[in-house]
């Protein structure tokens, strides 16, 4: 499925995730095998409760599988200590969430700069890079606004700027358009397309078919299992659209 002979960035094998909530255990993921090459634009589509977020948390090293292995750029993440995982989340992965997850007491600029603070980038360089990231999402004039003073679409673009500020190789987005109107959705999706064209790996989680159609490849998840059924069609359409 990969467009060229690049290296594999994500490799899941037999991944299961079971949540033990009180008496009943919930099997959110029931054996997932997925391989994603560097530079791919992949959508994961599925209905609510199908395990999309659970999968994304594992992909983002925010959570660990109950069973199975996850290799990120060739490294098995179960071997890594919490501090190393933090480092990977900081340098290799940019997150975009449905709820934006901006810190309300900080300006857009400081929100965007936050990952750089944990990357050890300080002072003028950090400000410079944060401004540049805001510029890329077209919000340089909103740098000093707090999230509460921005529209939903603008907030999500700030979140995208934050996700790309450390120049990660992969962007993970969990229903990034779920809280947006169609115009803002189109803006955000256009940003992802740009990032993809610039060589980033993008994993886009959604439950909307037209959003998934943006990706080059679509994985369908249902009851914690992946099928690539109906994916070829969407992927082909998307490819044709961009070529």
């Amino acid at each position, binding site marked *: 499925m990969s467009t060229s002979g690049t290296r594999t960035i994500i490799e899941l094998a037999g991944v299961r995730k079971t949540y033990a909530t009180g008496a009943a255990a919930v099997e959110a993921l029931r054996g997932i095998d997925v391989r994603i090459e560097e530079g791919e634009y992949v959508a994961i589509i599925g209905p609510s409760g199908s395990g999309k977020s659970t999968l994304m948390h594992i992909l*983002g090293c925010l959570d660990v599988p109950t069973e199975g292995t996850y290799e990120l750029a060739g490294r098995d993440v179960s071997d890594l200590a919490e*501090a190393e995982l933090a*480092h990977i*989340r900081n340098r290799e992965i940019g997150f975009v969430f449905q*709820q934006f997850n901006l810190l309300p*007491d900080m300006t857009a600029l400081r929100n965007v700069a*936050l990952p750089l603070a944990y990357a050890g980038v300080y002072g003028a360089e950090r400000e410079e890079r944060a401004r540049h990231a805001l510029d890329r999402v077209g919000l340089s004039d909103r740098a000093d606004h707090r999230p509460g003073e921005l529209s939903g679409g603008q907030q999500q673009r700030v979140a995208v700027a*934050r996700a790309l500020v450390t120049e990660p190789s992969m962007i993970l987005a969990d229903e990034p358009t779920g809280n947006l109107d169609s115009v803002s959705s189109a803006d955000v999706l256009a940003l992802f397309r740009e990032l993809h064209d610039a060589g980033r790996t993008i994993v886009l989680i959604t439950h909307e078919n037209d959003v998934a159609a943006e990706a080059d490849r679509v994985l369908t998840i249902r009851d914690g299992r992946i099928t690539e059924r109906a994916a070829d069609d969407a992927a082909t359409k998307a490819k044709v659209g961009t070529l």
Partner: protein
Amino acid sequence: MNWLETLRTAADAVRSHRMRSLLTMLGIVIGISSVVLTVGLGLGAQDKVRSQIDALGSNLLIVSPGSSTGTGGVRGGFGSAATLTLADANTLANSAVAPDVSRVAPTTSTSTSLTAGTTNWTSRIVGTTTNWQQVRARTLTAGRFFTANELADGADVTVLGADTASELFSRGNPVGQTITADGTTLTVIGVLAESGATSSSSSTSEDDLAVVPITTAQQLSGSTSNAVASVYVEAKSADLLSAAYQEVDAALLTSHDVSSASADFSIATQDALLATANSTNKTMTILLAGVAAISLLVGGIGVMNIMLVSVTERVREIGLRKALGATPSAIRRQFLIEASLLGIIGGLIGAAIGVVGALVLPSMINQPVSISGLAILAALGVSLGLGVGFGVYPASRAARLTPIDALRSD
């Protein structure tokens, strides 16, 4: 994330929850201000006692009638027993008996109503000898002290303390005027300069008294007794003080014909007086400081409590920071610094309130309060320590949160 950055983050958190931060700090504010105040009161009381004792004169031994009790304490007040007399004072003044004694001043003391014209004032009449002025290191602002002749004659003259003079003669120069004491008319021949001792009670004030020749004092009280309330003995120098002590002790034991176990007099040095007074003060200060320390502890627990609430409230923020690359130690540091900041700000406010209290309180309670820089520094150190100490647990709770639990809480 470096320390400066973390400090800024913590300061932002403190600032954005201003009310909660203030309430959190309240315990520490109260604790620190009461520590500063109680220590200040204790030190103030010590300073006051020292100034009173220093104002007695220098290189002094104070001989009182009655036996001493146990360790350093002096039993009984003035004239609790008529075992000390003018004859004793004369013995001690003999350089063959006590070669290291330079001067001796026996004193009697009675409280009497004085009248000048239509003005009445109750004061202390101190009967003594001509040496008193030098022994007690007093100077005069007007007139002169009484002479040996006046002492021998029992002349009706008096030297007034500064406060007594201003009470009886609000205008004009008291020297040359007369006052009446117990029906006897006394001519004011001099006025003493202020002693420099801070005293709150008139019965011990060194500035509210009327000094008369001891012979005159005997006539006033109509007694023929030679008993005295105390004998002030001045040693020739500070180095000779303990030698003088031995000589006085030996001379009085011999002349009273008693053993040291059954001595009917006691000798106090200024140091001993100071130590006795301070030990009482110290107990009080320690007690009060203990109460203050408990309130500090409660304040620290308050910080911990609020920090725990804050961790729970900010689960989402913590999760997000972790998702963006914060290591557990970065999160721990953030919450630890936040707690320390609450502690140190609380400490600063508390110290400021303590200092203001120390400036305002003396005029309200008539007690000196000294501001001790050391106490303030220590208090700030303690409040920082409280912040850190009680911040450790909440901070490690925050650090242990998994990013996912944190992000999921909607």
